[in-house]
């Protein structure tokens, strides 16, 4: 059900990620101001874009779940948010390293994109505890969907508020990626972003396939050897059935 196209996707991810790293290190020029350290940009920004996209995606699947009642959408939403949380840790870590290298501090509050990302991350970090504290699977899915929809709408609003708060002191152009970037850098950045999106989709599908396979396995065990064979499920934040 979830395994289709995994092989193609995996190969595409490997090729794209390798290609992106090759471009980053061999093709893209060093930044005039920041030098070599600026290359973390090609990892940090795509990671952030994909993580935010994953959060919003979780909200979109949540809407579909509430509309159709199909548990598959709940699983899709859960896995998207879970993966984005993991990538989010990467975003905060790489952002912190970049900030230390170019501004001399591990954390700076006058970088609105980083600050808004932290807030979004803090909000979605509550997604798992919320699911974990609801026992009934059907209610867990429904409540998590409501949370994911609110969170998805919160992402753009939060960015607006944080950016406005900063622009009082530091006026800045709205687009951080456009305009002044030279051609080689832009190409490298685009390839890195596409590679990261592809990697995210691949990991997402792997996790879906794995979760689905263990659900099927459990169901088969119960069918073949009776209800005692599989043992009771431990309490979990993840969806346990489709």
């Amino acid at each position, binding site marked *: 059900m979830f395994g289709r196209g995994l092989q193609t996707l995996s190969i595409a991810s490997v090729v794209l990620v390798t290609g992106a790293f090759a471009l980053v290190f061999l093709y893209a020029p060093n930044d005039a101001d920041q030098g070599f350290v600026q290359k973390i940009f090609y990892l940090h920004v795509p990671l952030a874009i994909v993580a935010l996209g994953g959060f919003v995606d979780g909200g979109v699947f949540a809407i579909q779940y509430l509309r159709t009642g199909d548990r598959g959408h709940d699983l899709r939403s859960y896995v998207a948010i879970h993966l984005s949380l993991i990538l989010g840790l990467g975003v905060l870590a790489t952002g912190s390293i970049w900030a230390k290298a170019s501004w001399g501090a591990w954390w700076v509050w006058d970088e609105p994109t980083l600050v808004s990302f932290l807030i979004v991350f803090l*909000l979605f970090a509550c997604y798992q505890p919320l699911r974990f*504290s609801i*026992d009934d699977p059907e209610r867990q899915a429904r409540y998590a969907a409501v949370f994911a929809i*609110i969170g998805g*709408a*919160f992402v753009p*609003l939060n960015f*607006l508020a944080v950016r*406005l708060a900063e622009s009082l002191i530091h006026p800045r152009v709205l687009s951080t990626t456009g305009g002044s970037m030279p051609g080689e850098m832009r190409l490298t950045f685009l390839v890195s972003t596409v590679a990261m999106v592809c990697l995210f989709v691949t990991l997402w599908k792997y996790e879906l396939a794995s979760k689905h396979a263990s659900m099927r396995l459990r169901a088969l065990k119960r069918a073949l050897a009776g209800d005692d064979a599989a043992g009771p499920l431990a309490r979990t934040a993840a969806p346990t059935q489709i």
Partner: protein
Amino acid sequence: MAGAAPTAEARAAEAPRDHAGGGFASAVSALVRKDLRLELRTRESVPAMFLFSLSTFVLFRFGLDRESLEGDLASGVLWVTLLFAAVLGMNRLFVAEREEGGFDAFLLAPVDRTSLFVAKAAVLFGFLVAVEVAAIPAFAVLLLGPSPFQALPGLLAILLLADVGIAVIGTLVGALAIQTRARDLIVPLISLPLVLPVVIAAGHATAPLFAEAGAEALPARWLGVLGLYDLVFGLLALAVFDFLLED
């Protein structure tokens, strides 16, 4: 004692005469009256929220080691305090519904489910206003350096818009958390990041009102942000609230 009241009142809300005429509006008004009567009899939420605000002001006085505040510091202390007090209210908002079977009674009633959301948001808004009516004079006496009277018209507009946002989010989060095992943890964990844009906007808008040299002009764009926040989450909450009630 507190136990019998909500169910009895919830039943009263469902009595045919109440929604024979207006339907939605009368259901909302019955639910609001029920909650207000409950609060008047038990006095559980508003006094606790007010006392909490006072304690927090005292905490800030010693935590910051300042006897009077002005500008952005005053605005920040006021908003953080009001927000934490609001979290107390969110935590208690649906307790009677859950513990005394008010949810079941409401679901049995032939009324639009959205009416519960509107009523609860209105009640939380009312609680916040009641707390602010007492807490803001206390803040002005205890901590605020410059005179509050010049700031008052602007402050009222900010409070109004921010309270709507906090009430909407609070109702949603309260309903989300009430059925979970860790309600007391879930409410602050989810609501604090969610209302952060309100604090950013309200804090920035209030800071110039508390300026040492007397109130400066109110930055209109922050009112715009607050209004946008209220609108987006208000509509969103109306759309998703039904899913938080059991079938």
